[in-house]
């Protein structure tokens, strides 16, 4: 199975194949370099991986949109994985363009909207206050633009990753 991946911002091609079904050895080719690794699961989304004589403890956090945060021996790496079929179905690179959405970084409650649809905002300007775990967090516009649709109102409960509003 051939996959396109991005790790910490760098794109790489990964091809994986199991040697035998009952074995824990996996063959892979990563950016044209072939290798083998011994991978066993040690928990839900946790693995012990051996490669080149070194032992790695790995946990995989399933993020939104095919992105993963992978902790290797305690240090986090951002990885995106796409296979051809999925990538095309999702609209390909075109889907990455468009409005910049401001999403809730964690589950919480909307305390206050600091802007209205149509307002001009500057990069770094506070647009909405979300409260979670006894803390009020002011979310800021990542870029200058015009406020698009407000997806939430004050008092709403929001889930992690839920779109709050967009800047066009």
């Amino acid at each position, binding site marked *: 199975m051939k996959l396109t*991946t991005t*790790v910490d911002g*760098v794109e790489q091609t990964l091809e994986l194949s199991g040697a035998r079904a009952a074995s824990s050895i996996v063959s892979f080719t990563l950016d044209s370099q072939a290798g083998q690794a011994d991978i066993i699961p040690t928990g839900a989304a*946790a693995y012990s991986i051996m490669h080149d004589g070194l032992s*790695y403890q790995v946990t995989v956090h399933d993020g939104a949109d095919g992105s993963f945060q992978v902790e290797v021996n305690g240090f986090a790496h951002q990885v995106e994985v796409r296979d051809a079929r999925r990538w095309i179905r999702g609209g390909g690179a075109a889907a990455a363009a468009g409005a910049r959405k401001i999403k809730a970084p964690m589950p*919480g409650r909307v305390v206050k909207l600091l802007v209205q649809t149509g307002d001009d905002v500057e990069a770094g300007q506070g647009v909405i206050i979300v409260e979670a*775990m006894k*803390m009020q967090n002011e979310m800021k516009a990542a870029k200058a633009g015009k406020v698009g649709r407000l997806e939430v109102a004050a008092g709403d409960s929001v889930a*992690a990753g839920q779109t709050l509003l967009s800047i066009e």
Partner: protein
Amino acid sequence: MIQKILIANRAEIAVRVIRTCRAMGIASVAVYSDADRASLHVRLADECVWIGPAAAAESYLNIERILEAAGAVGADAIHPGYGFLSENAAFAEACEKAGVKFIGPSAAAMRLMGSKTRARRAMREAGVPVVPGTTEPLANAAEAAATAAKIGYPVMLKAAGGGGGKGMRLVASADALGSAFEQARGEARQAFGNPDIYIEKAIRNPRHIEVQVMADEHGNVIHLGERECSLQRRHQKVLEEAPAPLVAEHPRLRAEITRAAVDAAKAAGYTNAGTVEFLADAKGHFYFLEMNTRLQVEHPVTEMITGLDLVREQIRVASGERLSVAQEDVRMRGHAIECRVYAEDPENEFLPSPGRITSLAEPSGPGVRVDSGAYEGWAVPIEYDPLIAKLIVWDETRAGAIGRLRSALREYTVGGIHTTLGFFREVVEDEDFCAGRIDTGFIGRWRQRRAKPDRSREQRIAVLAAGFHYLTSGREEGPAPRRDKSEWGISGRDALLR
């Protein structure tokens, strides 16, 4: 002697208190809100009482419900933990009225020290140096602006009603004051039921040094040495240690600061466990900041170097007994460091990261202790403080303790949510940290100079793991199939109904 203790708190500190209760043969009673049925303190206690909905104001801050619960189970004492009602003098009085011993200082001492503004006045009168600023709450944003203009920016807005970083804002200039004032009031109202805010001149990048004191009801007041808590983010401690690295540079500091702390406790007629907090500058000058009239989050570092169980001492004192040690019998040994494991994403401004813990491995071994409220499969609720556990290490020397911390952090894995563990893993490799060059500006500066070591080997493993996980966990067809424990319970119950 106390026979049964109701713990008016939750999560790791409630678990901590249960442990000492059980070791002493005292029955423990947990209370829990709707959000905490599955929390560890409820599972571990001998008895448990539901006290209300998830919102703290209707449960853990609800004095009436908690006293009802104490009456219903026949508890003869209440341990308040930290946060929630622990510094609420009205609660201490209500306990007394209900005939239940409050494990903490007298309401009078709490009132004096609990009001940060009154405490500042009292300390100033007692000759202890305090940070310049107001000793009365601010009426409104306009008064805040006027005062700030007078003492000069940067200023610190602080809640008069409680500590722990809640309702606290550093304000660098006048244009940011208004919104900071309102946010601080909002947080303070919610955290302490008291929106009062006062203002202090901000000391740039001070060291945070505090002294643990312990007093019984027979007039004995002792200190258990100092702690340094200079590593902070959002004015909240993330890493604490004892002894203070600053004391290594200024040996006279220990005698001076512990004497000031004992004087402060005596002046307040203090009993039970308390902490006197100071800001110190690089030259070793120190200023009274506030007194926390309760057990601190970071009490374990003091336990590790003194061998004492502070919760046990608290219970002894509340039972009318004498402290188990006199000042001259307190023997300090080695060095201890605590890391606060918050459900937060250090890569994203330490924003909260609640959710289900899908895998968990806590470290142990020589000199390693974990005070935890977490377990695998537990969902960290969004309603409360994100502190899920504390990792504490001890060794004969600070360098040894840092070595053990590195080892423990390597073993500690929490899957499913973000935590501050990754942050600590970098900090323990930091040259300034290892040399003890720390102050409250450390994290900000560290972000700037943060070393990016070559991790290309780990990157390759990360790609491999993500690809393997992607292909084998059925992710192509949606989120990874996973038998959710609570849904599992529901489907099980459906079977019962058939």
